């Protein structure tokens, strides 16, 4: 039980994710999450606006069920498997974030400065969450996959488009963290 309640190191998580990848393919499906964003659009009636969404969402039920499982997995771990929400960060990271205006970095999974419900009352607070989501949704569909589809599946199967996509993920992420964060926060 000691092991269950402690945070898991990378050498447990990485192989465990590879096992999830194996199970998905073993059961005849691909490993990916972001296509569900399109499925949600289809289910919400996006087919009225573009033929792109005129797909049979019922054929993707397996993936919707997978997503429900992911949500339940989050619920189960937060309720029963975590003794602490603190993240053990590099002291340099904590100091740097304090200078950016993030107090108590690592005291919780998410920084209150971005995710507290008070942010829903400010235009900037909502804009940050919404724009982040827009980039995720648009970018992942344009690129044809996210971390699971491109970084894990695509790189594992030695696909060049996935390597380019992952280089793109880093180009965008580095630009955001190194150059845009000091302007936003």
């Amino acid at each position, binding site marked *: 039980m000691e092991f269950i309640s402690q945070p898991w190191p990378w050498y447990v998580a990485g192989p465990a994710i590879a096992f999830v990848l194996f199970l998905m393919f073993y059961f005849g499906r691909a490993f990916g999450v972001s296509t569900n964003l399109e499925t949600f659009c289809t289910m919400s009636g996006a087919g009225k606006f573009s033929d792109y969404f005129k797909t049979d969402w019922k054929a993707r039920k397996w993936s919707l069920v997978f997503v429900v499982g992911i949500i339940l997995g989050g619920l189960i771990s937060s309720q029963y498997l975590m003794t602490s929400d603190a993240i053990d960060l*590099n002291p340099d990271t904590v100091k740097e974030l304090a200078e950016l205006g993030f107090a108590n970095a690592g005291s919780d999974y998410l920084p209150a400065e971005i995710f507290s419900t008070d942010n829903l009352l400010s235009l900037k607070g909502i804009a940050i969450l919404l724009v982040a*989501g827009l980039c995720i949704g648009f970018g992942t569909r344009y690129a044809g996959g996210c971390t699971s589809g491109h970084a894990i599946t695509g790189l594992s199967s030695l696909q060049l488009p996935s390597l380019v996509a992952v280089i*793109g993920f880093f180009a965008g992420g580095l630009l955001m963290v190194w150059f845009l964060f000091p302007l936003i926060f």
Partner: protein
Amino acid sequence: MKNLKFLIIGIVFGIILSKSEVVSWYRIYEMFKFQSFHMYGVIGSAVAIGVILMQLFKKGIIKDFQGNPIIVKPKKKGFIRTFVGGSIFGLGWALAGACPGPIFVLIGHGAITILIVLLGAMLGAFIYGLLSKKLPS
């Protein structure tokens, strides 16, 4: 119900992402700041084992549960689509500190505000769908 197995795999995946702190905004920040090995270790070791699995699929040594060969669908090609699309995704990944999998895990954690990120992501996917024929690949 034949989809029950995907529910269980999803639960396992959600627990792994939670317990390894991959769903923490801070873990994504420190990754892009090169201040911790954690995320590189997680993705790197998953890919390293994945490479071996994919070879075993390709050579037909591992077959699916019905005994059929496992075929990995090739990704859409195109430098602009993958690089530009990937970069836009990277901006969002770093800002929200979450990619699509972790967004759903965090809903399970009860993080209300992540729902705005999900709403944005659906809108983003919708905008892509509207423009998909006009965008360069």
